[in-house]
């Protein structure tokens, strides 16, 4: 190829004035100047490619970093934390020598452009983060947000996203044990596809992403590298270096779950034989990210021969190879004496593996192409010393008016018939309706360790050890409506709800991961929402004693100037000594007593009732009392351990009636309810006060249970009994289960048909 000379380091040093497309690559003028300053010369095309992707918002967290630091600074003391923020995923000690790693990530934009593949590769990406920690992935969860349920585009996006998650996750053999489905017009054009994964390992198997030991080999394995997801690189390649190339490369990748399944098995086998010194998955920014992170986290430098990277498309330029986001690839650092065995294992699993470089005793990352050195950088400057912005933020001027528009002023049902009708309307609204059309497309059984999934429990639960019954639970929650009304409180409510959901199943909450979905950080109002949400979450985690172990930030979720609701999605992980003791949500035995735990106040701001009945969003979200949440959690855990409750269900959107209807439908047994003293029927049914749960208590346990609540100071009010085949509110209405089921089921299918 005799066109333009290869842009080597030497060439770059000799041609300082060459125009470079830094702006097209998304770099600011200052950022480009800084790169030149760091290098003491202009970057080569390959270096520019690396810096531009690694310094992007997505990879560098440049707008969010200054705030995310709070998660570390305010982290509560926790003996459970084994690996914290900064690694591919956090790791938590769950006892008996086991460690659990978990993380949530977003794949929002690709899922809008190509719902199936966007969502599928989202699952693929988060699972590779889990494998990269040394763990066997054991479950996935999928918190989802879509535009209005009846919007025509939702019919395109939702089935595609669900099929993508199901197609990829099922094929990997990972049970799907939780998630969320929320509809709101604010997500039109910006659906949120968050995906979480959990992995289990023994303590001694924890692996980190670092390249140490001069002479150790760098092995790239998995799929061949192709021209996926390198829109930016092709600008470089086509407009500056080679005009003959197609100028646009698609920014969406096609996933190959089968290849990823092989990657899981062969990586785990290599771990088992202790062949791996350091490991990194290839996700966003592909090889640029993997090589610079491995090198900068290790002790030495790294030298890479880019010609050795197996390609799917032989016309790729070195810049494109460095930026390619081809899926299903991993990078391992292996001692020379173990390379043969490593390659053998890859061969056994039909996985392509190639030594592409080695760890050096210098401190530079050097990359060669056709014999020329095209990258010579301090890897830290690429991976960790990107720009950091403290972007301006300001409470938006509309916030006061929004909060003043109190939902308590909305007209309420005037008689029993209206009350009854609104209950039906609520349980049949898209957000409150059954999501079984979606969850039935997910395999929740594979691996044979799923104890709770779907609607069975407030959190998903899996068994970790078949002998002892040790298990873990996970719940993800986030209410954008609450967060819009008050982002600080909204983030804490998300945390409180996930925490409560884990405790409701009998598991002890241990740690948090999060996915922070927001609009553009360049809008001071959005930035304020972000800052408030992070502060709320960090403060909340400190108070609850559950450290944030990792997470993800997704910004620019907006169309024009219209941003999505601020949507912090919080995942809480918990541990349970014996999964046989878990508490499901189902009312199963007639005659058991229904207790409401916690205090109910007239809180309707952001409520499902205000949305469903009045299409209204205004006022303040429910108040948060994290001490109360903690106490409620302790009671629920004790009650599960000592067999005092048969069912427990947390109260959140939709309030008490939604929870009772779900528990009744799940168990196929009705409930007779009485409005407790001091409350009106409407508030009793629809309030969304936090820190509450309903439980069903066998009569033989009633005294023990109420004594415990009394002694610990948790309000416990007897509100009814499990009975019959209807949900009845005494003196007000009776709703046969069949009618409730009819209203609750089939809603989503109906909208998509």
């Amino acid at each position, binding site marked *: 190829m005799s066109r333009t000379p290869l842009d080597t380091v030497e060439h770059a040093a000799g041609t300082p004035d060459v125009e470079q497309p830094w702006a097209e690559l998304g770099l600011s003028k200052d950022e480009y100047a800084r790169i030149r300053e760091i290098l003491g010369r202009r970057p080569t095309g390959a270096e520019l490619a690396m810096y531009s992707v690694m310094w992007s918002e997505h990879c560098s967290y440049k707008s969010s970093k200054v705030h995310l630091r709070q998660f570390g600074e305010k982290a509560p003391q926790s003996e459970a934390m084994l690996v914290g923020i900064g690694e591919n995923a956090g790791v938590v000690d769950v006892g008996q020598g086991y460690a659990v790693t978990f993380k949530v990530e977003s794949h929002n934009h690709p899922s809008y452009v190509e719902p199936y593949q966007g969502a599928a590769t989202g699952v693929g990406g988060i699972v590779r983060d889990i494998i990269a920690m040394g763990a066997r992935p054991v479950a996935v969860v999928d918190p989802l947000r879509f535009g209005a349920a009846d919007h025509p585009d939702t019919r395109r996006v939702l089935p595609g996203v669900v099929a993508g998650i199901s*197609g990829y996750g099922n094929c990997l053999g990972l049970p799907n044990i939780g998630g969320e489905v929320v509809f709101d017009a604010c997500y039109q054009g910006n659906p949120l596809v968050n995906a979480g994964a959990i992995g289990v390992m023994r303590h001694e198997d924890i692996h980190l992403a670092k390249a140490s030991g001069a002479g150790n080999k760098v092995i790239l394995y998995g799929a061949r590298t192709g021209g996926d997801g390198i829109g930016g690189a092709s600008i470089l390649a086509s407009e500056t270096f080679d005009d003959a190339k197609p100028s646009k490369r698609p920014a969406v990748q096609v996933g190959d779950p*089968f290849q990823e399944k092989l990657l899981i098995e062969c990586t785990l086998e290599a771990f088992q034989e202790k062949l791996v010194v350091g490991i990194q998955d290839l996700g966003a920014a592909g090889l640029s990210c993997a090589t610079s992170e491995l090198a900068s986290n290790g002790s030495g430098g790294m030298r890479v021969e880019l010609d050795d990277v197996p390609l799917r498309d032989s016309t790729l330029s070195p810049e494109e190879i460095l930026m390619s986001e081809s899926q299903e690839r991993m990078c391992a650092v292996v001692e020379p004496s173990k390379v043969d065995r490593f390659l053998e294992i890859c061969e056994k699993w039909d996985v392509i593996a190639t030594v592409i470089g080695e760890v050096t005793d210098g401190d530079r990352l050097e990359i060669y192409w056709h014999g020329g050195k095209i990258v010579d950088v301090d890897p830290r400057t690429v991976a960790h010393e990107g720009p950091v912005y403290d972007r301006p933020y300001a409470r938006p001027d509309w916030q006061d008016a929004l909060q003043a528009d109190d939902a308590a002023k909305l007209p309420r049902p005037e008689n029993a018939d209206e009350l009854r009708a609104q209950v039906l309307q609520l349980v049949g609204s898209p957000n409150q309706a059954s999501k079984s059309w979606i969850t039935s497309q997910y*395999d929740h*059984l594979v691996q044979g360790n799923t104890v709770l999934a779907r609607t069975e429990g407030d959190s998903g639960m899996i068994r970790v050890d078949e002998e002892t019954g040790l298990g873990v639970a996970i719940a993800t929650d986030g209410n954008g409506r609450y967060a819009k009304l008050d982002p600080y409180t909204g983030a804490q409510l998300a945390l409180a709800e996930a925490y409560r959901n884990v405790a409701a199943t009998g598991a002890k909450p241990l740690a948090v991961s999060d996915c922070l979905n927001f609009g553009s950080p360049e809008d001071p109002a959005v930035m304020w929402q972000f800052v408030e949400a992070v502060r709320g979450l960090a403060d909340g985690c400190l108070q609850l004693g559950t450290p944030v172990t990792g997470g993800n930030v997704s910004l620019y979720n907006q169309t024009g100037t219209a941003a999505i609701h601020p949507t912090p999605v919080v995942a809480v992980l918990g541990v349970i000594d014996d999964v046989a003791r878990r508490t499901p949500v189902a009312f199963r035995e007639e005659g058991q007593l229904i207790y409401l735990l916690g205090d109910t106040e007239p809180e309707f701001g952001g409520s499902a009732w205000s949305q469903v009945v009045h299409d209204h969003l205004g006022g303040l979200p429910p108040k948060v009392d994290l001490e109360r949440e903690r106490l409620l959690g302790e009671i629920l855990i004790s009650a599960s351990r000592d067999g005092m409750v048969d069912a427990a269900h947390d109260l959140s959107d939709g309030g008490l009636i939604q929870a009772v209807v779900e528990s009744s439908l799940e168990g196929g047994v009705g409930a007779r309810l009485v409005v407790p003293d001091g409350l009106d029927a409407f508030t009793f049914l629809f309030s969304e006060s936090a820190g509450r749960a309903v439980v069903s208590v066998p009569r033989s346990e009633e005294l023990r249970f109420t004594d415990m609540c009394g002694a610990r100071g948790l309000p416990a009010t007897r509100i009814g009994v499990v009975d019959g085949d209807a949900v009845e509110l005494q003196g007000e209405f009776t709703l046969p289960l069949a009618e409730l089921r009819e209203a609750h089921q089939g809603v989503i299918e109906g909208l998509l048909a």
Partner: protein
Amino acid sequence: MTTRIGVVTFPGSLDDRDAQRAIRIAGAEPVALWHKDKDLKQVDAVVLPGGFSYGDYLRAGAISRFSPVMETLIDQAKAGLPVLGICNGFQILAETHLLPGAMLRNNHLHFICREQKLRVENAATAWTSDYEAGQEILIPLKNADGRYTADEYTLDKLEAEGRVAFRYLTDGPDADGYGNPNGSLRNIAGITNEAGNVVGLMPHPEHAVESLTGGGTDGLPFFTSIIKKLVSA
């Protein structure tokens, strides 16, 4: 001597560990078999497990069928070795023509995972003798390509020879597991070969052996049936 039951792992097999667990719970010794090995390690019976071997690319089971292990397995199955194909295993057996017919994309086009009511139509096969003929059981089902299809002649022949081993039960509420989940012709969920040693079905009995994680134990008799048969043989 304990009964040894092989479980083949193909690339992309998922429920192989679950099948091994079920075999263990039933009291036999599971033996891992590898798709690249022609050697069946002298096992007494073989389970082809569920999953997405080769990603279900081309057609479910189409590529696995050409694995080295299948060469041996086909010969031995014809000679009487008991073989159970679960889900993807059933699809592989159909592709090898050890069992007639084919599995197509579910009529609703989605992957479906649910508890499914079945009737045991043939309790005389190597894998069903611990059931009663006509017994109704609840077994989880999970697949995307489970629509059993064959031409009318084949279907009539299967019926006439009593080779429909399991049928989806349709006369009850959906919520209780009734209904044809995929459009299978004549509600066929599983079939057997003439000799009764090779059985394939779409639902997953290996996921119904522990009440804690499977919602019941109706699948256990598959494994106890074969153990009894082998022990008494």
